[in-house]
């Protein structure tokens, strides 16, 4: 028996919106197939979270946006994130990208940095080849709906042997609750290239619910190194479903740096598939929960390649009545000899009404490997508070120092100074200071 699901997006709308954007036929066709698939797929099942009880209907409608060539005309809420001197920038405002800038220097090197809609037209071969290879349409209903409904987004391609020193940046803003907000990020790092990409997700002035159904795909070909930093700080009107996935070919390397600073309910799944030999994946996540947020954060590393290595490191602070499930999944497949997978999840609880479950999961199908995990859930250590207070520091400041200290090792890794200092401020706000 098949379950008849009433989908929040309809085929007629998908067609209409695609026409409005002047989209290529192959892409619209893919969207319609995805939508059809969505009807027969189930919701994802993150550990200990019942998504069927969440309201996941606020997809809104596609609304076209006017592009601008001037940074001055960008919404104020995005401007504050733009690093001074950045010449490689994409800004998405609700359903579409409004601003794209790529320096001459990078252009000359063959770098492509544009919204994904444009890329699907102008770089069809590349996009067709990679879109949907890391996060598959058929994984679950949420991914299928994403592939039916995504708009705007980013396509970043770094050619073979090109090593970029400066980070490329993107900002995604939702401020219209009736507009679809579902960007797709596709990063393709060709053989032996190197790139850092940083983005921010923000909301402001919403008068209704928004669902962010976002997907990030990173394809790192042989020997490529990708550093990916992202900070999500949506307001409580936004339910954030984010699936991030990297595929690593031989000797490729990904570093994820993720700041989960939303005020709304969030499912975030940050995963690496270590397909090639000698691959390396490093994931550092910080999260703060407050209010009555429901949060489910998963980091995942799946080892196929020999001598592949993964490190996952999550630190979360839970205050007020925030409920969080924090999963670390290390999977080592048969044949991935000499693989090494390590993970740590640490949760600091600031309130008796908050919940933080840390679930380290090791799934090992190969003998010749190393794997390790550590998980802890604890309160602020009263001995540490006493020690700091014994030097004259007030209780509030002592606790603040300890909480910051708990998060500091990850904040220090953020590759953009502006983002680092901003994140510190966001941390302060989330901690109610």
């Amino acid at each position: 028996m098949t379950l008849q699901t009433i989908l929040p997006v309809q085929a007629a709308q998908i067609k209409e919106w695609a026409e409005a954007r002047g989209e290529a036929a192959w892409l619209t066709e893919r969207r319609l197939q995805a939508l059809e698939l969505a009807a027969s797929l189930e919701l994802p099942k993150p550990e200990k979270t019942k998504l069927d009880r969440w309201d996941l209907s606020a997809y809104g409608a596609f609304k076209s946006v006017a592009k601008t060539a001037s940074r001055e005309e960008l919404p104020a809420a995005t401007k504050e994130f733009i690093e001074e001197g950045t010449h490689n920038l994409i800004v998405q405002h609700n359903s579409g990208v409004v601003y794209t800038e790529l320096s001459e220097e990078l252009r000359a090197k063959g770098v492509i940095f544009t919204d994904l809609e444009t890329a699907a037209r102008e770089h069809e071969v590349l996009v067709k080849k990679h879109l949907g290879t890391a996060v598959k349409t058929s994984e679950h209903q949420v991914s299928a709906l994403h592939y039916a409904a995504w708009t705007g987004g980013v396509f970043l391609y770094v050619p073979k042997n090109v090593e970029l020193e400066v980070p490329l940046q993107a900002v995604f803003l939702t401020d219209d609750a009736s507009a679809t907000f579902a960007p797709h990020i596709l990063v393709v790092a060709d053989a032996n290239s190197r790139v850092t990409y940083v983005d921010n997700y923000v909301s402001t002035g919403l008068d209704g619910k928004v669902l962010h159904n976002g997907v990030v795909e990173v394809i790192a070909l042989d020997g490529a190194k990708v550093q990916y930093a992202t900070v999500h700080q949506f307001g409580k009107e936004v339910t954030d479903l984010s699936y991030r996935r990297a595929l690593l070919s031989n000797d490729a390397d990904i570093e994820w740096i993720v700041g989960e600073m939303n005020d709304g309910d969030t499912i975030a799944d940050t995963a690496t598939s270590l397909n090639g030999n000698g691959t390396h994946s490093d994931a550092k996540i910080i999260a703060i929960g407050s209010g009555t947020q429901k949060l489910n954060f998963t980091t995942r590393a799946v080892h196929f390649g020999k001598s592949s290595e993964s490190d996952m490191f999550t630190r979360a602070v839970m205050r007020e009545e925030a409920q969080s499930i924090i999963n670390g999944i290390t999977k080592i497949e048969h044949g991935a000899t000499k693989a090494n997978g390590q993970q740590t999840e640490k949760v600091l609880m600031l309130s008796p009404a908050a919940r933080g479950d840390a679930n380290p999961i090791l799934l090992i199908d190969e003998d010749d490997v190393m794997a390790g995990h550590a998980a802890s859930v604890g309160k602020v250590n009263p001995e540490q508070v006493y020690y700091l207070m014994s030097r004259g520091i007030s209780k509030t400041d002592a606790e603040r120092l300890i909480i910051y200290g708990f998060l500091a090792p990850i904040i220090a890794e953020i590759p953009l100074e502006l983002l680092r200092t901003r994140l510190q401020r966001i941390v302060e706000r989330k901690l109610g200071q």
Partner: protein
Amino acid sequence: MATKFVIEGLKAEIEGKEILKGINLEMNGGEIHAIMGPNGTGKSTLASALMGHPKYEVTEGSATLNGEDVLEMGVDERALAGLFLAMQYPSEIAGVTNSDFLRSAINARRGEGNEISLIKFIRQMESSMKGLEMNPEFAHRYLNEGFSGGEKKRNEILQMMMLDPKVVILDEIDSGLDIDALRIVANGVNEMKNEDRGFLIITHYQRLLNYITPDFVHVMMQGRIVKSGGPELAARLEQDGYDWIKEELGITDETVGQEQEA
């Protein structure tokens, strides 16, 4: 005002067990008092109770610093009033650098709007660290994290030097120190000696007192000060141990709050 620190009838317990059974002690600025005694006699409890460790409950008595009872104050207020405890087991705090921590502590004293300038702070910290023969990189290391026993003790003395307290309590500062480190720590203390500052040095070895000469020596047993004297008392303890005091006072078990064997 010349510093005057007076402990009167101090009783304290941990988890309902009384450890301090009435401590009396008077200390003036410029004086060094040594509190000696075998293990388990309540010496470290005295230090912790004075500083306000959350596990210890003061049940009776007072400890006044220039007329103000510090036992009525919060831990941070005691520190701001001029009390400093160099701890036997300082906490390790990851993510907080030594210099950020010290600057917060100094600024807590100076108050908002009167914060120490970064340059002045760095200069002070560097010069104090040099005096203690500490590796300058320790300024940027996380507070006590991965420090050896000796490094932690030096770091306690560094804090003492930078916070300029009126009453310094050193709790077993000599334990785990090799002879060079002992000399350096003792030099740090001796340099800090002045008319406005009193020192209460808790130790169960006499050897620290070869480097720091006490004006008064007190022996603790069973949660009380059972004998006081001058430097000659420390010398006698070095030579003869504690048994003669136990005999003199008719004490068989000098410890306090330990589980009694049946």
